[in-house]
Each structure stands twice: as C-alpha cells, then as structure tokens.
C-alpha cells in the first residue's frame, strides 16, 4: 500500500507539472493583461506600456517566464510548522498571489465543508434506502426528488431558496436568513467574536442547503445503483443462506461494498469543489476560489489563473490519493494487489 501511495504521489507531481506548463503557456500566449488600458482615455503613453510590460515580465520569452515562475514555485522552510510554502508570483496589480489564494481557499472551505458532510450523509442515507427499497414508493419518491434536483440549474435553485428566505424574513419581520456574503457587512466593526461566529453560521444556512442538496442528488443515484448491484451479489446470498440476519448482512457486507463507487465520485467532486463552487459563490456573494478564477480570467492574468489551477489540481490529486487509500480500507483485495 505504501509503495502504491508513493507511486501515485510521484505520478501526481508529474501531472501537476504538465498541467502547470500547458496552462501557463496557453494563457501567456493568449492573454494580454494590458488590454484594459488600451481603450483608456486619454491614452496611456508608450512609456507606460513599456514599463508595465517590463514590470510584468511580458517582454521576456515565454519559456523563460515559465521557468522563472516554476523555479520559485516551492520553497521549504524547516523553521516553520508548515514547511512547504508556495509562491505563485504576483498578479497584474503586483500583489502576491499565494496569500490571496489562501484567503479565498479559507472562504471556499468554510462554504463547502459543511455542505460536503451534509451531502455525504444524505447520499448514504437516501441512496441506501432507495437501493434497499428499489421500485417501492419511497424509492420512486427519492428518485423523482433527485432527478428534479439534478435537473435544476444551480443559480435558479439558489435564487428560489433566496426568494423563499426573504419571504420568511418578511413574515417574521426579522432578518433570520441572509442572502448575501459570508457575514453581515461591517460586523467586524462592532460585533464580538461570538457574535461574528454566530452571524457567519447564519450566513452559511442558504449556501449549505443549496450546495448540499445539489451535490447530494447525483451521489444518491450512485449509492442507490451501487446498493442494488451489491444486493444481487453471490456473497450476500451466501451470507443470508448461512442465516446471518438481514440488517447485519446489509450493514457488514452490503453497505461497505456499495460504498466503493461513491468514494470515487465523492473524492473527485470534493477535490474539484475546492477549486470553487463558482455559481453558488456568485449567487450568495462569497468571495472564494470560484470568484478568484472569474476575476483572473477577466483580467487576463496569467499567474493568477495558473496559481488557481495549481491549487485546484493539488486538491484533486490529494483527494484522488485519499480515494485510493480508502479503497484499500474498504476492500482488502486492493491492499493485497
């Protein structure tokens, strides 16, 4: 298992390198970070453009720019607890990218962590129930619900939730639900830390419901199908024939084996979610990773885009690795292989 993990890790490093090279080269070839200044009035001087090109390194060959970026990407600081430090360079406004990404990642993590936990619980519960009771009324109900959720565009579902929340606020004459931001704007100027934490929790309600339901809807389908397939397996019939009680068969042999496909899907989805729940962030005005990417693309900012890609890719790779390890935990045959 250790060799397997190390091999996967080394592969992942090469995957990250290849991703960074292709994204960097493509963006640098296509983007013009100074485009925004070309239509300004009065026009910027040639000296201004020359200075900006120099400052952003745009006057250097593309490969040299990439090498410069790559050679500064990782730094080891063994005096610090977090000994691995990333340096993604500076953006078009000459601000360090790494601290910005750290801030955005913290915001996105706050939004998605609760939602992921809720979605996994929902997927397990409803998926297994649906699978166990397949073609029964409860399965039909869950199936319809999940398909409705899968079919709903994220922005529309979120907008509906917000509309409903505002109606409830109106009815209550109190602002119980918040539709905008990760906390009340400016609360840090007057709120105690306890007040701010509570406020942040309340701001989590709608985005979490939105993200958890929409994410879980697909996972429920995977879990249902997987459960149905496992229930037909020979070893389950054997266990039943040997007289093991049905709940024990389901818990010990059924659910455990049915979890494997879900682990793959969850790992892939969760890794990608750290790149930002772009639409949910936009609808609820959370300034997370998704918004960062949008802005970087709009500004044609090569370093920012590549920085974002690297962080997202690292999460995808790490969660894939976790999935592989979890396979081993769930299925001893993987470990032995």
């Amino acid at each position, binding site marked *: 298992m250790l060799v397997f993990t190390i091999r996967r890790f080394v592969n992942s490093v090469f995957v990250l390198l290849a991703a960074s090279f292709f994204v960097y080269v493509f963006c640098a070839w296509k983007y*013009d970070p*100074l*485009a925004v*200044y*070309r*239509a300004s*009035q*009065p*026009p*910027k001087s040639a*000296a*201004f453009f020359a*200075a900006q090109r120099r*400052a952003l390194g745009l006057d250097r060959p593309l490969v040299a720019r990439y090498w410069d970026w790559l050679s500064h990407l990782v730094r080891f600081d063994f005096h610090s607890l977090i000994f691995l430090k990333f340096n993604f360079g500076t953006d*078009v*406004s*000459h*601000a360090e990218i790494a601290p910005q990404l750290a*801030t955005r990642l*913290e*915001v996105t993590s706050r939004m998605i962590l609760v939602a992921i936990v809720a979605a996994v619980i929902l997927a397990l519960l409803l998926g297994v129930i649906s699978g166990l009771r397949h073609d029964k009324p409860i399965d039909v109900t869950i199936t319809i619900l999940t398909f409705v959720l899968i079919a709903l565009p994220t922005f529309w579902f979120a*907008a509906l939730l*917000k*509309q409903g929340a*505002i*109606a*409830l*606020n*109106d*009815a*209550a*004459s*109190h*602002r*119980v*639900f*918040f*539709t*905008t*931001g*990760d*906390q*009340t*704007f*400016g*609360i840090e*100027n*007057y709120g105690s830390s306890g*007040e*701010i934490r*509570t*406020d942040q929790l*309340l701001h989590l309600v709608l985005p979490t419901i939105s993200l958890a339901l929409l994410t879980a809807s697909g996972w429920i389908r995977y879990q249902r199908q997987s459960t149905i397939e496992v229930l037909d397996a020979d070893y389950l019939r054997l266990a039943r024939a040997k007289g093991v009680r049905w709940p024990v068969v389901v818990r010990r042999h059924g659910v455990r084996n049915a979890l494997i496909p879900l682990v793959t899907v969850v790992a892939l989805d969760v890794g990608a979610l750290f790149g930002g729940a772009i639409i949910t962030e*936009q*609808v609820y*005005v959370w*300034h997370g990773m998704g*918004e960062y990417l949008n*802005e970087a693309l*709009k500004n044609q900012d090569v370093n920012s885009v590549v920085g974002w890609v690297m962080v997202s890719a690292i999460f995808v790779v790490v969660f894939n690795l976790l999935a592989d390890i979890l396979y081993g935990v769930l299925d001893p045959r993987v470990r032995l292989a």
Partner: protein
Amino acid sequence: MLTVSAPSFPADFGGQSMRRTARIVPVIAAISLTATVVVACGSDKQTKVLTYGEGTTFTKNLFPLITAGNVTSAANILGRVLDGAFRIAPNVTYQQDSDQITSAESTMVNGQQVVRIKINPKAVWDDGQPITSADYVFTLDAQKSLDPAQGGCASLLSDVGFNQVESHQIVNDKEFTFTFIKDQAFADWRGLFSGASGSAPLLAKHVFDKGSPKANCDYMTAGWPIADGIPDGASNGPWLVKKANINVDSKTVTLVHNPKYWGVKPKLDRIVYANIGSESDVVVKALKNHEVNMAYPQPQIDLISNLKKLEGFTTSISFGPQFEHLDFNTRNPLLAIKEVRQAIAYGIDRPSLVKATLAQFSDQASVLGNRLLVTNQAGYQNNGADYDKQDTGKATSLLEGLGAKKGTDGIYVLKGKPLNFKITTTSGNPLRDTTVQIIKQQLQPIGIGITENATDDIFEDKTHPQSLEAGGFDLALFAWSAGPNLSANNSIYQSLDAQGGTQGQNYTHGGDPKVDSLLTEMAQADTVAKEIEFANKADQGLWSDMFTLPLFQKPTVLSFDNKYTGISDNSTQAGPLWNNDMFAVK
C-alpha cells in the same frame, strides 16, 4: 444572556407580505424566536450606518495614481477620503472645494498661464499636520514625468498637464503659484488637484517624500495594498479608511469619521462599502433583504424593472458620461469619401435607435448631438441637429451625386465596389448587438449593406488584426467617456499630423487642420467659458467631417433605501458616493 435585538428594519418592512403569509406565521414565529435567541448579529450600536453594494471589481490597492488603484471601486471608496482642491459635480464640471482652498485663479502673463491657489488656513491632514503649499508643489513635482531618467516615475498612469508645468513658487505656507510652459496653457488645470475621484489626489509631502525621486517612485509604485489601509497623515477628507476597518475576506471597507476634519462632519456614523458583484438577482435581493441600502449596478432592463418594484426604495436613471458612437475608418477607400460617411449618418435614424434601445430604461433618453460635451454637461449644445432625423433622400442623393449605382441586390456600387460595410464591436454585449441590427435594418433600404463583427479583439494591440489599433474595421461601435477634462479628447479627434504622426486614439485616421487648431485652442484656453466655446466650434467641424457619429449616452441606475436622505447620482467618474458626507438617516 445571548438574546440581542434583531436588525432594525423600516416600519413598512414586509407589511403586506406579512398579511398574505399569516397562515404560516406560527411556523415562522417558532423559527424566528429560535433565531432571535441565537442571532447575536446585527446589533450595531450605532444606527446611522449605510451599506453600499459595489458592483465593480474590488480594488487591490488604494493608491489611485497607479494601475492597481485606478479602478471604479477604489474611486468610490476614496472619493471623500483623499480630497482635492476641486470636485467633479454632476454637471461634469470641476467645482472648488472651499474646505480645501479659499481661491484659485488662472491668468495669462506674457503668454504663460499662471495659476494662483490659496489654501484654507484650517486645512490639515488626518494626523493633524497642516496642509501647506509644499504639499501642493510636491504633488505637481511627483507627477511631472513618467521617465525615470528625468526624475519621473514610470508606474504612474499619467503625467498629462503636470508635464506642462514649467515652474512653481511658494508665496507662503497657504499660498502658491505655478506657471505653465509658454504657449502651452492647460485649460483643465483644475483636474491636477481633483481628488481621488478625479484620479488626482493631493499628496502629503511628509508621507510621500522619501528623500529622492527614485525612493518616492518606489513608494508610489507599491501604493497602498488594500489590506494595509491608508497610512496616517495621507487623508484630508471627512472620511478615513484604516487597516482595522478593512476586511479583505469579505471585501468590505468601512469608512469612519476623520476626527481632524475641519469642515462639516458627515451625518452618518459609518459607511460600509461591500462588494456584492453585478449579478442582477443578487443586487435586488440584497436590497430587498436590507443587507445593503444602496446600489449602483450596471443597468439592464430586467434589473431596472425589478428595482422599481422594490417597496421602500427609490430607483433613478441618469445618463452618464459614457456614450456610444461609430468610428468610420478612412483607410477604407469608400469611407475615405466624406459624402459616403455623411450618407450613412443621414441614413441612420438615431431617435428610433434610442427608442428601441434606451427608451426601455428611461423616457428621458435622447440622441447625443456633441462629441466633446454630454447632455448633462455645462455648455452642451446639439451641433448635429441636421442629423437628428433620418433623411433617406439626402443619403441617396449624396451617393448618386458621387456616381454610385444600385446593384441587383439593392446595394449601391461606387468605383466598382459595393457599399457593404462591417461594424466591428465588442462581443457579448446585447445593447450593441441590437444597435448594429437596427442600423443594418435602417441602411438596407437606402442601399448600404451592414454586417456585424463582434470580437473580443477590438481593444487589443496592433498584433491583433481586428483591433482598433490595427485599423482592422470599416465601422466600429464602442464607447468613449466624456468628462470635465475636455483636452483628453484631443487624442481622439486631432489628426495624426497634429499628434506628431502617431494615431493616439484617432482610430479613424481622419483629420481636419481647422479642427486641430480649434482643439489646440480649447486645450489652452484660460477660462472654462472659452474652453467650452472652442469645444463646440471643434465639434461643429467634426459634424461636417463625419469621422465619427455620436449615438447616445449610456444610462446609470441608482437605487437606495428611502430611510436615507441626501443621496443623488453623479454619473461622472465621481460616482454615487460623491457627496457621502451629506448622506443622512431620515
């Protein structure tokens, strides 16, 4: 005891909805009771607070003279933090800020423009240091050049105007003069001290002077990263932006009182500036749920309609300094002929165009009859009245006068070439798509064919063949921005010869020596009245030349909670927070 009062709402909050939803009140009551116990937020002890929802990108730097800080969001935050001697009024003119200076006058002495400014004796920086002539003189020197070899700073956005200052003289701590180079008077001299909203803040010498031009430049190049706020001693307006009041994660900035401000204190205790993006639904719901109290989003039909439906809010539409226009590329042999350009202009029914596009926003929308001054600007006059109505007869007679004959497809052929033109414009802009389609429908019956070329490359550099800079267009539809600095237009309308052989922003490559001369006189006028007079004369010449055709001003929309007073739009670059010291709770 965790119970804290819930956020305050206007008296009419949810009145009708509450009656409609009376049946679910018990359920809601249970939720809200729980929430009220839990909610420990919104208990702002000071009630005179306004939250402004910003739609543009959150700034990363607060120093407005460099690219990172020269964005709309920074201008909105800093408008009354970094004041200047002049402010941009809603009528697109500079107005003297009597809190900052007591007088400013420009005179001509032996062919040289001399400006004398007297500083308000009470004026101080936020650290209590007096604002003196040395600060003003330092501001002039710091921006005199972009060339480091001449002691300038390449990171600065512009040295226009500053580079024409020949000398300055400090009379005393509160009075100084500065003189422009002989025969290079600068009519827009007020713009040199127009505060953050005019991208020309006054620079505090004791903060910015680091001992050498290079050190000063290094300091300005780094600017003020948003997370650090503005250092002590650099602010001179009624509000302050301090590090402690900035939340980069939430993209909020809270403006607090400047305790050293000597003028009238702001009526609100704080203004919270929150970045909420430009998504229509987000803006409307944030206002409706009273999470923000004021917004200035990009106008869209559905957005305005939804904003107008909000109870307890005022929504107003204005027409800003940005205006749509057509550029005719005179490098196209057919468009090099003045009569062809005029025929196209006569063939376009601009009032119908406005009706089909902007009338949905406001019944006040009108065509724009001037390239240098907009309708709400002092001195505006319609110099293009001859083109106010579509005149198909004149259009066809102009073409036939040139010997053009209609082909079998109904399109005129001149010099063996059909009058088929491409209008190049930005992609993904529905208003511009509609504009092109309407122009196409209007010109088709006259015998002029139009196709649309929507491209992302329009504002790219010369390496992109379809860009304005490369001249890869027949006609181009895009916006220019008017403003109080009329001389900023010279690079658009002066001939290439007058610009030393460079095109500047004259993408049409058209030129007229008479107009060149009028524009030069406009830029060097010593009074605003003369500047406007020359601007109108130059514009009359430009109507005759028809290198460009102005269409209409773009709308702006302002929406705010009725519990506030003193809020009014300023559609110039000063923005909706231009007078935020006057905002008050009713």
